[in-house]
């Protein structure tokens, strides 16, 4: 008996050691690109110090902050691009969350004519690829003066306008709040709007944070649409549009380390925000996954 237990113990120990090795390996693989990014960002691009393009070694020969200094040197609009992206992200997050909450509440709690029709119609709309309509959206926005110089409000408008279709996760959450609560309040004379504002919303903190977080993160990655709306107007680019040129365009030779530095500065605040709100994100994603 004793022997059996000890052999099981040993088996478990070996299993655990194996698992740890695996986990450490996984962690290394997952972290490697970020470590690489950070190390590259500390390589100087200045002639005579080091070289700013691609190199075949990882650790810079001399650590320097030149690439970061470049971003704030005024030689480019990095600060402007960064601010643009923050403005877009904040407005999108706030407005999109409001719209999603409204739509979700209406679809979850109210029963009106054409409700299922509307939901099915939106589901079908979602199956069209977004890029298809890029050129059309561009000219629509242009009519309103919201391209190039006005690209920032234009982008916010586009991101927010269609966000109503992304109600699934939030509606799923509302569905889990017992309807009896609503009914009780309504018997006491509260209007729908009152119930929505004073009961449902305060109870939905996790889903609100999740929606806002996802909406906040999306504009940082948008290269395709943002570049299409803002082309030729440097000061209304977002970071993705502006910085991809440093990697893809031949006009910018040896900008790789500066791209890395810019990327690190973008990644830091988002990562911190994400880490702080991680639990809400998990809750939203899991809830959404199960609900479909």
């Amino acid at each position, binding site marked *: 008996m004793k022997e059996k237990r000890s052999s099981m113990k040993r088996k478990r120990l070996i299993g655990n050691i194996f698992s740890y090795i695996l986990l450490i390996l996984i962690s290394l693989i997952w972290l490697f690109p970020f470590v690489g990014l950070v190390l590259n960002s500390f390589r100087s691009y200045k002639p005579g110090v080091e070289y700013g*393009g691609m190199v075949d070694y990882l650790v810079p020969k001399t650590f320097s902050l030149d690439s970061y200094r470049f971003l704030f040197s005024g030689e480019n609009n990095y600060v402007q691009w960064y601010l643009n992206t923050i403005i877009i992200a904040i407005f999108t997050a706030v407005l999109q969350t409001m719209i999603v909450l409204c739509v979700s509440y209406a679809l979850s709690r109210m029963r009106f004519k054409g409700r299922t029709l509307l939901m099915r119609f939106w589901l079908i709309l979602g199956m069209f690829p977004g890029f298809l309509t890029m050129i059309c959206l561009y000219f629509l926005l242009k009519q309103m003066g919201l391209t190039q110089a006005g690209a920032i409000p234009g982008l916010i408008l586009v991101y927010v306008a269609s966000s109503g279709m992304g109600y699934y996760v939030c509606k799923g959450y509302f569905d889990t709040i017992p309807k009896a609560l609503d009914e009780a309040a309504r018997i006491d004379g509260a209007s729908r709007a009152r119930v929505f504002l004073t009961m449902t919303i305060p109870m939905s903190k996790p889903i609100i944070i999740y929606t806002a977080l996802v909406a906040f993160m999306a504009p940082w990655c948008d290269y395709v649409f943002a570049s299409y709306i803002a082309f030729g107007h440097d000061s209304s680019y977002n970071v993705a549009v502006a910085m991809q040129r440093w990697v893809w365009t031949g006009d910018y030779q040896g*900008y790789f380390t500066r791209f890395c530095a810019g990327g690190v500065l973008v990644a830091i605040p988002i990562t911190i925000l994400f880490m702080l709100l991680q639990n809400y994100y998990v809750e939203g994603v899991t809830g959404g996954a199960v609900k479909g």
Partner: protein
Amino acid sequence: MKKRLLSVLLAGAMAVSMLTGCGGKKGGEIKIWVADNVVDFTKTQAEQFLASSDDYKGWTVLVEAVGEGDAAGNMITDVTAGADIYGFAQDQIARLVSAGALVEVEASNAAKVQSANAAGVVNAAKVGDKLYAYPMTADNGYFLYYDKSVVKDPSTLEGIIADCEAAGKNFYMDLGGWYATAFFFGTGCTLTYDTDNDGNFTACNIDYDSDKGLAALKALVQMASSPSFVQGSSAGDAVNYGAIVDGTWDAGTIKEVLGDNYACAKLPTFTVDGQTYQMSGFNGCKLLGVKPQEDADKLAVCDALADYLTSESVQLARYEAVGWGPSNIAAQNSDAVKADPALSALAEQFAYTIPQGNYPGDYWTLAESLRDSIVGGEYKGADDATLKAALASFQSSCQSYAK
């Protein structure tokens, strides 16, 4: 009711235009797109020019960094939102003309352009027999940069590759539509397109589907099979190179990397089936174009400004500021330009190249397909028949773009 609303709106618009201080009818903003590294240069020059005469009072410039690669695409997406004056590589000209993004060069300027630039350059700015753009540089060609300590003899391709292999260094060359012609034209093939005055392609003159084409393709496949070979001609992305085929625009970057071992030469020769050919290729230029305008005053200012920005003195100043080789013959003959090692290697190479004409956008895409097929190893060890079939399909596709 509607009329009144209209008049109120009109009055408002007038008030706004008066407040912005255009002072009468004339004036406005001229948008210019150039590559990032000449933005400041162009801005200074353009402002100087506008300040030089009272005729241009009220006009301001806005210079934006839109590279030559993106400019054409953006102009075509939306001409009305595009720049009034913009720089682009000559291969885009037919596309731009057919999309209505270029206006013919004004007659008196056209005469000046034609006398101040070499015939090849002027041809590059023409579509059909109309001159549509102002030549800005004539350095759009490629040659060999190499590391003196690695490559002993830069005159043969085989030697360069062997040296690179021995030293464990890379040899870089792009095999896209622009660079691959170094081989095809080298063996004596031709590929040109005829255009009418509206930028439509009317005929394709090509003989890639021949023994000459076969020799070139064989050489390409052979080169791509070397472990040292890396596809690409962009020094900023290249690492650990012993030699790289690239243009003058990367001279600074390469000089920085190679340091004392920096050297330039014309392109090498290559040998297929015992026969030796000199690598050829395109010589081309960067052009400055003016967008069609609805306002005659603005057009006049744009014409004058574009003419000035491509004049001898500005081309020289641009060479000094960023090292772009001038297209103006007088500027080319200045001592500073003649002493530049990269530009002189380019000039040497230009003896073997043909002036780049107009090519449809589909050609470049098609050539990228050929490039990826070669680099991806699709033709490794392929027999002549397979290669011939590929060339035949390439040729028929090229011909299909001209209607």
